[in-house]
């Protein structure tokens, strides 16, 4: 009985955590892999892995960064397994196009395409900072690089987006 209660409590804890952070997990995965279908797969795999190792999460306060770390690793595993090649933005699959498609607002669509076209090294820290609210120190930890490198990448990412959006306006 005790074991069953413990199992139930564990499941409830897991459900609560992943339900709250599912949007962050999905968006992070989607911007890492730039493909909606793969992102959903990565998130599902991440949830399974999180379930298996839930007891390693000592405090729920750390759940978000813990889950995002798992997503990052699962994304890398996915690409290692499938050995996918980098995709040219002019040659997208339907799922990739879907990531960019949608809104009637041209400016939003242009910005989305510009972010999509950024190199992984620039896009990821930008997502972590702007969307996830990570500090540059936390981004450095998550990505395993120096804080100075994070600052440089963020600065360059914004410079590229600024330039692209200005060029777009001029055209």
């Amino acid at each position, binding site marked *: 009985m005790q074991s069953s209660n413990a199992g139930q409590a564990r*499941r409830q804890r*897991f*459900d609560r955590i*992943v*339900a709250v952070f*599912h*949007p962050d997990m*999905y*968006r992070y995965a*989607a*911007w890492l892999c730039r493909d*909606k279908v793969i992102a*959903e797969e990565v998130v*599902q795999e991440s*949830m*399974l*892995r999180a*379930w*298996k*190792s*839930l*007891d*390693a999460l*000592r405090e729920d306060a750390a759940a978000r960064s*813990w889950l995002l*770390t*798992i997503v*990052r*690793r699962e994304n890398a595993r996915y690409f290692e397994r499938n050995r996918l090649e980098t995709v040219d933005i002019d040659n997208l699959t339907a799922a990739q196009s879907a*990531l960019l498609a*949608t809104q009637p607002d041209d*400016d*939003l669509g242009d*910005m*989305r395409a510009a*972010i999509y076209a950024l190199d992984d090294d620039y896009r990821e820290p*930008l*997502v972590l*900072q*702007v*969307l996830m609210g990570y500090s*540059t120190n936390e981004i*450095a*930890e*998550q*990505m*395993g*690089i*120096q804080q100075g490198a*994070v*600052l*440089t990448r*963020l*600065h*360059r990412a*914004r*410079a590229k*987006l*600024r330039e692209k*959006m200005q060029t777009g306006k001029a055209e």
Partner: protein
Amino acid sequence: MSAGDTTMNCDEYRQLVGADPNFDGGAGHRNECAACQAYRDEMRALDARIRQALLLEVPEFVPPALQGVAIENVVSLPARRRVTTPAWFALAASVALAAFVGLRFAGNAELSANELASEVLAHVTHEPDALRVTDVAVTDQHLGEVVPATIARMDHSAGLITFAETCPINGNDIPHLVIQGSSGPVTILLLPQEKVSGVIELDDGHRHGLILPVGNGSVAIIGTKDEQLEQIQQQVLKSVQWST
């Protein structure tokens, strides 16, 4: 840089604001430079648009099917379980602990002490699976594969190593081990190629540890914030003897 810093030039200020439009420093420069003030406003406006663009529509949450998914070997530890003495891994022994702190790193791969410390700490967080609280040890065979005799001499008779994998640190494949400490999992990275000239202290706010000089290499030990590492540290220093 302090908020009132007037020594900053335009390039420096824009680098910092470009990296973080919410950067609040450099007020001295900003107040005197209308162009940089405008640049900051532009960056903030750009960030609002970036954020909007990043907010992709999220598909409906589908809870994963967990029935039959093993959570094998994962148990909760009592709050303050102690590690029994030399149980976890034992080697023949031989290195004295350098008792000085924060000395320069003397490695052969151009990493400073800070860089090595950062890489070590970053690696710990990259392996969330490793930090499971569990009472199931890895097999002797697996441990032998991860720590081959060519790296270190090791006695497999002992204890509670619950994770062992080969991982890259500074371009070298090294053994990454985890033992169960009194407050949770403790990471041990054997770094035979990273020579340090003294103890390097590690602290990222969530966990703390040390990189200890051991022969011509070093060993990193990282535990949770409240983990007492002294006993583990002594065991490590008694235990590691590089083969290289």
